[in-house]
């Protein structure tokens, strides 16, 4: 729904500008486009974007049975899915070589190691900057409000996550901080990557400043990042309180932390889940995994804290998960 609606808005805005519509007229046009978007497409850019909308919907729906596959079958299905995505991206790029959404998804579908992914993503960003100019923060407008800018913001969010994956924590925090400046609404969750990077860098001041900057919105990443940060800094009493907070706020968070699962590559955005839901906590733990590995005894410490193991097990029982 999200990306399809974005496409609808793009088409309606282009059409509306051509027609010089009033606000009321624009609302009506939007309804009409939503009904049958394809009928209103009259340029290759939106044709290409529409292909990407379908490609990403197909990608998502093809993942439904992943849980039922064994490892080899999963890898084969996944490889197939990536091949199909690359083909779809190339089809879209044949129509509109500057389609940032397609270029972004092509980087991710290349499915290579983090350094190479990062190179590809920076190429896309440079390409966008060369043709459209750099993105600059504007206090009066959130960049996300311009639907045509959103793919470029997605590229930045993907860069920030790739930085985390390739152990570039300063860069991850700089890029996500830049993204937050462009779009304080932060639909793409730049604050999440930033919080994890700062916890890994043991930067308490930066972590607190970020928390204040996002008006202490709070989420699974910030809650988990605080546990990691304080534990790394050796502030165990505070870390214990943070852990209890993480446990209280995030449904099954401690279970997710103690029993991490494999999460597939985001294509291209981080999936959205309810704040503090088990699904969100699972994503936060997944993204934090390379950082947790670097603090090897953190999970054992979590387990040894009063009630934590029991609460994680109780969550598993309640939810029908294996322990």
């Amino acid at each position, binding site marked *: 729904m999200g990306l399809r609606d974005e496409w609808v808005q793009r088409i309606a805005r282009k059409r509306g500008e051509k027609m010089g519509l009033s606000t009321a007229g624009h609302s009506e046009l939007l309804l009409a486009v939503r009904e049958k978007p394809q009928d209103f497409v009259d340029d290759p850019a939106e044709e290409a974007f529409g292909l990407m909308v379908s490609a990403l919907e197909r990608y998502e729906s093809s993942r439904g049975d992943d849980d039922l596959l064994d490892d080899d079958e999963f890898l084969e299905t996944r490889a197939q899915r990536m091949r199909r995505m690359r083909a779809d991206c190339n089809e879209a790029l044949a129509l509109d070589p500057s389609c940032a959404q397609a270029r972004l998804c092509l980087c991710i579908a290349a499915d290579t190691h983090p350094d190479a992914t990062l190179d590809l993503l920076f190429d896309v960003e440079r390409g966008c900057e060369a043709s459209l100019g750099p993105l600059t923060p504007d206090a009066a407008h959130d960049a996300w409000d311009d639907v045509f800018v959103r793919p470029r913001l997605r590229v930045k969010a993907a860069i920030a996550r790739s930085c985390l994956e390739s152990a570039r924590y300063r860069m991850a925090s700089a890029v996500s901080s830049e993204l937050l400046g462009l779009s304080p609404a932060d639909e793409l969750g730049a604050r999440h990557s930033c919080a994890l990077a700062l916890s890994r860098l*043991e930067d308490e001041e930066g972590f607190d400043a970020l928390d204040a900057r996002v008006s202490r919105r709070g989420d699974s990443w910030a809650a988990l990042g605080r546990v990691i940060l304080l534990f790394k800094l050796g502030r165990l009493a505070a870390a214990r309180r943070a852990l209890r907070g993480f446990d209280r706020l995030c449904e099954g968070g401690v279970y997710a932390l103690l029993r991490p699962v494999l999460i597939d590559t985001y294509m291209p955005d981080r999936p959205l889940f309810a704040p503090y839901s088990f699904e969100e906590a699972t994503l936060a733990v997944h993204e934090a995994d390379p950082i947790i590995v670097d603090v090897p005894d953190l999970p054992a410490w979590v387990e040894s804290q009063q009630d934590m193991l029991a609460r994680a097990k109780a969550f598993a029982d309640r939810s029908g998960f294996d322990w």
Partner: protein
Amino acid sequence: MAFDPNREDYQRLGLRFARSLDGEGPIAAARAFSGFGRRFTQERDGLPQTDADRAFHLVALATELIDYRLPFANEDTGDKIIGRAHALLDEALQLDPGCPDARRMKRAADIPSFEGYYDYLRQGADEVRAQCEGQLLKEGPRSSVERGGLLSELALRPYLRWLAALASKAIVCGHNREALRAGERLLELDGEDSADVRFTMAIAHAKLEDEQGLEELARRCSQMDCVRQRGGEDAWLLLSRCALAHKRRDMDEARRIVRRLCESYPHAALTLLAQRELPDGVFARLAMPPFSEDELILAVSECTVLLQEGRDVSGHGAFGAWVRKEASLLVPEEDRAESLEILAQGPGGDADEQGGRH
């Protein structure tokens, strides 16, 4: 230069022997001392010594076994070596129950978790410092000025080793700021850095991606009055800088540093390709000749925390995989065959190990 336990054993007894000659005429004293080396090797027990000196001798023997022989032993002889070393440490603790080196080495084996051992070192540090300073106060007043320096150095060394171990374990546990704090405490006491804690601190700065801190450390250390300075920059500093260049995607600089390592150390490309992870010395960092092949092997092993970070499907870590690729391009002809063998193996010898906790 690290700590050589045998040399330290010799220094301890030498100092005590020299002090036992106080009051003798200079000629008689010189004559007596000329026989010291022979007596040290042949009739050690007959030399004047305290129980703490006897305990340290046993620590030196245990170090030889655990740090220098165990890594090259197979499983069977390995168990025997461990048994013998621990019997030596137990005996050392009977002679001198407070012996910080023996206590630290025993606990390294007893405490199963990294974090537990790190906690033990952190919590014990002040007590060990008080103990070492107390020892100095007890013996110091009877010493001449010229011997005072060596005396206080020897008295403090167990504490320096304790702090050096604390700094190195802090990094392994992910407490990089604590590693720097322990390193600073050590440098305050030991301006010449006989523990080489600056190597560990370089890694901590790289982990924290603190370029300024790393360069400041490099600047301070270049002014240190120690033997190594003649040889140029060490592998720990170069690898830390290389990791930072890689992190900021300055690949030209990172590549320059890899080439520089290959110029400074023999067979460096092979070492950078293999990235072996060795157990840390339990007494102290193994003493290896500066700029030797073995020193680079040691540095690369300690830099595992930099090399293996990040997700990488090959299991080498983002920086590690990149270093391997660069090193493979720099292998000289005579090392080619060996490099192919290394490339055929996975990380740490395992075929398909992966990062992450899944």
